[in-house]
C-alpha cells in the first residue's frame, strides 16, 4: 500500500519558532533527523520518494481558460502557511505502518531539541483496480 505523507508550512502543535530563529546546532540536528529517517525507510524497503519543495516565495498560481493568456499570481500569499512544504511517498505493508512513519515525521526535533509536533497529512495513493471487477 502506498501512502503520501504531506507536511505544509502551517502552524505546529508546539510553539516552535520559525527555523531561522533556531540555534545552528538545532537546525543541524533537524536535518540529520530527516536524513536518518529517509535512510531507515530505504533500509526497510519502504521509501519511494522524499522531496522538499522550494519556499512559498517562489510559488506561483496559474489559472487559465485554455484560450486567453493564463493569469499568473506571484507571492507573497496570505495563506502561505497552507502551502505544501514537502512530502514522502512510502510503500508499506499496512495503514498502521504509514501512521507510525507519520508520527515519527511529526516528532522531528525543533528548537532546543523539542519535538515540533507538525501535523502530517496521511493520504492513500490511488492504485490500479481490483482484479475481481
Amino acid at each position, binding site marked *: 500500500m502506498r501512502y503520501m505523507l504531506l507536511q505544509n508550512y502551517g502552524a505546529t502543535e508546539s510553539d516552535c519558532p520559525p527555523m531561522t530563529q533556531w540555534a545552528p546546532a538545532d537546525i543541524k540536528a533537524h536535518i540529520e533527523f530527516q536524513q536518518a529517517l529517509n535512510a531507515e525507510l530505504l533500509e526497510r524497503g519502504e521509501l519511494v520518494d522524499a522531496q522538499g519543495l522550494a519556499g512559498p516565495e517562489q510559488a506561483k498560481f496559474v489559472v487559465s481558460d485554455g484560450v486567453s493568456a493564463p493569469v499568473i499570481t506571484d507571492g507573497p500569499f496570505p495563506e502561505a502557511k497552507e502551502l505544501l512544504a514537502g512530502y514522502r511517498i512510502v510503500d508499506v505493508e499496512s495503514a498502521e505502518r504509514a501512521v507510525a512513519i507519520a508520527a515519527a515525521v511529526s516528532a522531528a526535533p525543533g528548537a532546543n531539541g523539542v519535538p515540533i509536533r507538525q501535523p502530517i497529512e496521511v493520504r492513500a495513493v490511488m492504485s*490500479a483496480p481490483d482484479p475481481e*471487477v
Partner: protein
Amino acid sequence: MTGHGGTADLLRGLAPRALAAVVRRYGHFADAEDAVQEALLAAATTWPADGTPDNPLAWLIRVASRKMADQYRSDEARRRREEIAASWSLIPHEPVPAYDDTLTLMLMCCHPALSPGAAIPLTLRAVGGLTTREIAAAFLVPEATMAQRISRAKARLKGLDEPFTLPPPGGGGERLRSVLHVLYLIFNEGYAASDGPDLARTDLSGEAVRLARGLHAALPRDAEVTGLLALMLLTDARRPARTGPGGELVPLKDQDRARWDRQLITEGLNLLTGALRQSQPGEYQLQASIAALHDQATSHAGTDWARILALYDRLERLTGNPMVALNRAVAAAMADGPGAGLALLDGLDDQLGDHHRLHSVRAHLLAQAGDTGGAIAEFEAAAARTTNLRERDYLVTQAARLAADPP
C-alpha cells in the same frame, strides 16, 4: 535481462537450477542468491555478443561459484572462513531434478515467516530469475528500495537456519499453501496493473503463470496447484476485453466476449477437469470453477448463476472471507433477483464496515431494483472510498449516468 529475446527466457528458466546447485554446494542461501544474480547479469550482457555457451547451466554455476569464492576470499573473518570451508565438505552434491529445485526454492522464498511483501520480490528474483531492477519497475519503487526489501527477506531466512531440502512427502502442506498464496498475489498484482498507463511494467501475471507452471510440473498430482494454474489461465483469458480503448475499466457484464482468449480457456478447462477428478477440493479449484462458468457463458445474462451461487456458498464456508460473501450476493442477485442480493448484503455491514466494494455492489443492486436515488448515493459513497483510480472513474461515471438519464 532487460530484453525479451532468447537469452532472457533461457536465463529465467535456468535461474532456479543454478541457484539450487550453488546452494547445495556451498550452503548460504542469501550469499548464493546474490552470486547467481550477478552471474545472470553477466550472462545477459556477454551471451548475446559472444554466443551462448555449450552448457549454459554449467556456465552460470561456475561463474556464480567463482563470485562466491571471491567474496569469501576477501572476507577477513577467520571464523567465517572456517565455517564455510566446513560446510563445503559437508554438503553432498548429487544430481537433482530441475522441478525439485524449483519447488525447494519456492518453499524457501515463500516461507510463512516472511510477509507477502517480502516473499513476493524474493520469489521473483530467486525462482523467477528477474533482476532487482525489473522487480522494482513492476512494483513502482526505486531499485535501491527493492534491493533492501530483498536483502531483508533473506536476512530473515538466514535467522531461521533451515536446511535447503524438500520437506518429507506429505509434510509440506502448510508451506505449500503459502507458496500458492504468494503466486496468487503476484498474478493479481500483475492483472490489476496490466492495462492502461503502466505498459512499461514487467508482466507479473505472465511471470506468475510461468512460476505456477513450474510448480505444477513439480507437483502434477496436487489438485490445488493445478486449480491455481487453471484459475490464472481462465482469468487471464479475459484480460484483452477488460479495458476499453481509453484504458477505462470494462466490467464483466459489458465485456466483448469475442476478445477472450479461447486457447487459454481451453487449457484452463482441461487443467480444471483433471484437478476436480482428484477429489481434493480446495479454494483455488472453487475459484477456477467459477471463472470457468463465466468463460463458458455466451452472455452475462446467459451465465449459469445458480451454479456460481452454489460455488460461492462453498467458497464462503471454506474461507470465511467477507469479500467472497460480497461476490455471493452478486451471484444471488443474478440468480434470484436484486432483492435476494440486497438481503445478503445487509448481513455484511458488520464485517466489511465502510468498504468501497460493499457500497459499489449495493449501488449496482439498487440500480437493478429500480432505486435510482439510492444507487446514485451508493455509487458516490463507493467512489469516495476506493483507492483505485480507474475504479473511481468508473463509479463516478455510473453515478453521473444514473443522475443524467434515470431509467
